[in-house]
């Protein structure tokens, strides 16, 4: 019994130490005078591998989720004779919830795991040590550009996701099931507000971007530099980041729309 309490205490201490290490890592990576000439190409490179490479999966998922929303929404709403409300239903679900959240989950799976594996591999092959011995700070050189890339990319991806999703809902609802074209858009416009719905969605996706990228980088940077360690860290990135996103989503939703 005492042993179990001790183990719990140890686990608590470890997680606090882990969070502290992650915080130190991030501050050391981001604080300091920026060197635009050197960091711009690095940022571009990372925006490419983190953002551009995730675009396909985001567009495809967004389209399908929007189409499913259109189909499901229609079958429910038509019972109440309220199929005119399909537009706002699709748009609000996407803008407030599905856009930021599903993008963050897909991002954690696609880009987050890749970031962890990449940095873990750099650690295992002594590339990070080697940078340090060359008097180049790996936090500034490797971590920082990846962090900014993640932070900039995810809100863009979330906006694309929502836009494509709404178009998917339009395809199914209007083109296929015959909801009135004008009503679809006008009822949507009457119910969706720029400041309230779209801005809050963007704020959500910025928060998620911060958390997911941070977790991915921290897991990679602090992994055990062996093949087992890297694969564990990668799994842990996806799990931790997904849970963090879902938990934070509840908190944010309560604050914004509660």
């Amino acid at each position, binding site marked *: 019994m005492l042993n179990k309490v001790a183990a719990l205490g140890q686990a608590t201490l470890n997680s606090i130490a882990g969070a502290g290490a992650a915080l130190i890592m991030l501050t050391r990576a981001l604080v300091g005078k920026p060197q635009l000439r050197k960091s711009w190409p690095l940022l571009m490179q990372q925006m490419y591998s983190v953002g551009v490479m995730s675009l396909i999966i985001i567009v495809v998922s967004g389209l399908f989720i929007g189409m499913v929303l259109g189909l499901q929404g229609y079958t429910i709403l038509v019972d109440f004779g309220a199929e005119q409300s399909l537009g706002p239903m699709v748009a609000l679900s996407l803008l407030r919830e599905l856009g930021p959240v599903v993008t963050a989950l897909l991002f954690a799976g696609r880009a987050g795991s890749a970031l962890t594996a990449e940095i873990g591999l750099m650690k295992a*092959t002594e590339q990070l*040590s*080697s940078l340090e011995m*060359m*008097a*180049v700070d790996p936090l500034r050189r490797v971590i920082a550009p990846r962090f900014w890339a993640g932070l900039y990319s995810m809100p863009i991806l979330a906006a694309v996701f929502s836009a494509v999703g709404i178009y998917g809902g339009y395809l199914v609802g209007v083109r296929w099931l015959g909801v009135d074209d004008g009503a679809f858009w006008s009822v949507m416009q009457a119910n969706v507000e720029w400041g309230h719905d779209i801005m809050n969605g963007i704020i959500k996706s910025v928060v998620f971007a911060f958390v997911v990228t941070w977790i991915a980088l921290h897991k990679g940077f602090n992994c055990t530099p062996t093949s087992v360690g890297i694969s564990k860290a990668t799994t842990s990135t996806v799990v931790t980041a997904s849970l963090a996103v879902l938990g934070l989503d509840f908190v944010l939703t309560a604050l914004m729309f509660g």
Partner: protein
Amino acid sequence: MLTTTLEGNPEHLVEIDDIYFHYNHSTHNLYEGLSMAIPRGKITAVMGPSGIGKTTLLRLIGGQLRPQQGQIRFAGQNIPSLKRSELYQLRKRMSMLFQSGALFSDMTVYDNIAFPLREHSRLSEELIETIVLLKLEAVGLRGARHLMPAELSGGMSRRAALARSIALDPELIMYDEPFAGQDPISMGVIIKLIKELNESLGLTSIIVTHDVEEVLTIADYVYIIADKQVVGHGTPEQLLNSDNALVHQFLHGEADGPVPFHYRAPTLADELLGAGDAK
């Protein structure tokens, strides 16, 4: 024993003074009162059985790890007490050849070698190209400059990494197991390179290895570490003639001796009988 004669001797580039070290996650001391001096402009070999932390020693000198006790002086500056910025300044004067080569896998060989130059100098691209080609010529890989690290053989990537580590003309170069896993030809090439670089550039070299024969042919001075301390040091001839049993066992590769063949365990008879009792 060494400490009194070491202090501030200008002939020594690196002085390690009575250090105690263990990793954070363990209480087991890796070193207890280890001291050594690396003479300037010479090739010093650090040898010892596997697992006694030879690579750790290099990381300590590079400032990536800090000892719990003791001093490590590089050109008179105590590395563990330096601030980060000072340490980074100091690291520009040393370089390290990692066991795996540690080439950046997302750059070509050329960019890898140009990397430290681009980071730390304001040289023009033309000048950088000249330097890189010269360094590549020195390791015989000028023709391979457009290849990616993944396309290189083990020996070639180590040579490319060597070219990178001399790109900034450091004073000290540390080799971590440079001969491990090399075929005889590339081993010969690397031995030749280490020797040549040391002579032509006036480098101070530290080679950490357990390949006795190879290193004894080029080393000027040899330290043997075991039991958390230096157990023997001297020129290769002195050590080969040493009557220290441990040094003798290590240099001649005998299976049993002061470093036992068996991992610590109760005697076989006890264990078998003990197992019988437990039933």
